[in-house]
């Protein structure tokens, strides 16, 4: 894990981006006059995991949305696996980036069943492969009996599992998790953390995980990026 921010020495980001993974260079993002991200740079090797911590409103979610292609930075570049996906005058569409993402809320589509939600990213797979993947995920996350239920018919904890299953479904190269286990009880959190770690390792995904919870963070990775006010004093903890 390599970080460049204000007050940090410059590192050879090119060397990292050649090996794949996620590279972010001099990223700026403002909403009107409010600066959210300022001069953010870091590189994460393929298959590595990174925890992002920081107070509310410091730009953690915005960073993930930029990586996913849901927002365009004002300046800077984003590289995924040796290809630039966002740079001045260049932008790759979100669905072409090979990303799985879990938002702070489960964000399940209310007009689709649990099964339809999970298989949405893999609708272009052959039917039998798709069914097998669905069954595997439902069993792994212990929600097989909810396959035909709609989101308003399942509990909050089950909704979180469905959101995780949907993000994992296509075995994405990159996983972006934005406080995916907030408000869950300790046992369930631990249980799901195990599955997240297992699935990420199995798929060899590169993962960025945003959380406030130190225990959760410690369980996932020792690479921790601490976001502070307007990122100028970002520091790394490993």
């Amino acid at each position: 894990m390599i970080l460049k921010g204000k007050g940090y020495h410059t590192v050879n980001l090119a060397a990292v981006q050649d090996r794949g993974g996620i590279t972010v260079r001099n990223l700026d993002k403002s909403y009107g006059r409010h600066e959210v991200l300022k001069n953010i740079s870091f590189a994460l090797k393929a298959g590595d995991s990174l925890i992002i911590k920081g107070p509310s409103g410091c730009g953690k979610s915005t960073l993930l949305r930029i990586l996913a292609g849901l927002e365009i930075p004002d300046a800077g570049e984003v590289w995924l696996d040796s290809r630039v996906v966002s740079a001045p005058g260049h932008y790759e569409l979100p669905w072409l980036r090979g990303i799985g993402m879990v938002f702070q809320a489960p964000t399940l589509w209310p007009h689709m069943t649990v099964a339809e939600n999970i298989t949405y990213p893999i609708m272009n797979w052959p039917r039998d492969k798709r069914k097998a993947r669905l069954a595997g995920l439902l069993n792994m996350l212990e929600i097989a009996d909810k396959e035909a239920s709609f989101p308003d018919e399942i509990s909050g904890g089950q909704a979180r599992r469905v959101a995780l299953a949907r993000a994992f479904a296509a075995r994405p190269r990159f996983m972006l998790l934005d406080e995916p286990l907030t408000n869950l009880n300790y046992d369930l959190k631990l249980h799901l953390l195990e599955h997240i770690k297992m699935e990420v390792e199995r798929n060899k995904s590169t993962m960025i995980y945003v959380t406030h919870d130190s225990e959760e963070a410690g369980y996932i990775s020792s690479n921790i990026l601490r976001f502070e006010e307007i990122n100028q004093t970002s520091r790394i903890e490993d």
Partner: protein
Amino acid sequence: MQSSRLGQSFTGFAVLAFLILCLGPALALIQDIGGVAGGNVALLTSRQLVVLANSVIYALVSALGAITAGWFIALFIWNRPGFMAQIIKLLLIIMLPMPAFIHAAGWRAAWRFINDVTGYNFSGQGWAAAVVITIMAFLPIAVGAAWLGLQAVNKDLIGVGRICRSDLQVLSEIILPLSAPFLAAGAAIISVLSLLDYTIPSLCQVNVYALEIFADFSAVNNPGRSFLLALPLIIVNTVIAAGILLSLRNAGISGVKNPLNQTRFWWPFWFWVLPVLGAVTTVVQAGVPFITLLLTALSGETLWRQYGFAGEMAYSIAVAVGVGVIAVLLAYPIAKALNQAAGGLGRFLWLLVLLPLLMPAPVFGIGLIRLGMWIPGIYGSDLMPIMAGLARFLPLAVLIIWAGLKRMDNSLIEAGRVLQSKPGHSFFRVELPLLTPVLLTSFLLLFVLAFGELGASLLVMPPGRSTLTITIYNYLHYGASGSVSVMCLSIALLSCLVWVGGLKSLELGRRVK
């Protein structure tokens, strides 16, 4: 305590006035049903059935066309927030309160102009013309409904879809189904409005059921019979309204205000053509009435020489101001009661408020004549057109103010009540200033609607008086194009000035605060 008692008395008075004005006309007609000779309209004649069926088909086709066009226009604004989107939005806001017959007059002038230029003899009459003009007239409502639908979809639900599938798939598989209740509600509202309006069809020489009621009363002068004739239309409208309420009850409104705080959608070129065409339609929709009316007005005598309608103009403004002021005063306590009522009482109040919106305009006109005969000093007075405007549009004022109350943070009002130094202080220093924008919006909308009202006031106008709208409608049938154009332009410009000017000053006022 004193102010509370005063408030309760005023609410009681307002509800009573609402019942007399908005439901009284229909009740007066029900009382007359007994006098219908032989009950020969209890069952519709086959001709009337055909007219009713034609009207329903015409309304549904118009609504479908308007909501489809509206959806693409809303997509254009939603996905391309920039200068063009701002222009489109402004045009739609300007055109929102424009009376339907002004569109009809504008399009008739356009067809004449095209015929003159091309030598082609396009009549501009018939069902197709009526549908096109109706779509244009109700386009702002359609865009509004589609826009609300798009706004209501949670941005993260869209975002997570965009990570998985192409933007076009996300649009059809996620955004469209989630915003469908709003589209359905918008289409239903336009259906009801199309069923109630007879100005466009009558100017396009097609017969619709709303006109049938008016024509029957003019021919037979039997109020009870008119009400019986109106009943099928009220029933059809009630069914559609129930559909609206059901649609909106099932709508998953997330309350996310700006879903497009994200990258623009990428759609293939063939698809992009549709929103762009929608945007062009908006420009045509607003441009045709203004440009063609202006051209027609200028083609004859000069504007000021043609303009001999100052009396009608002054009378129309006086009626519209009267309707606007009285409506706001009455609607506020009713909206408050509606906001507080729950359970069975709440549902009953909602029914009372919505019912008048489903009745055709001639029912109000005919019913008010009946009421006017019972109450001394009313019939033939200048109160009649004001009552007609109130009867038709007071429920709208109630709904606007209710929406304002619903959005307001109730704790601000409660804090004002707890901390007030004297009775009524909280009302004037907290409640009223917070509600000023919504009260003013309500006044502005009612002013422009009453200014263009035709269906009910046509029947209740005192002798020797006429509003600009009635004069235009009469002239339109005689084909006096130059004069009509001047009068239509006057209405259009005044409506724009009052509506947009008022909304703009509200915006400035909010900024100053």
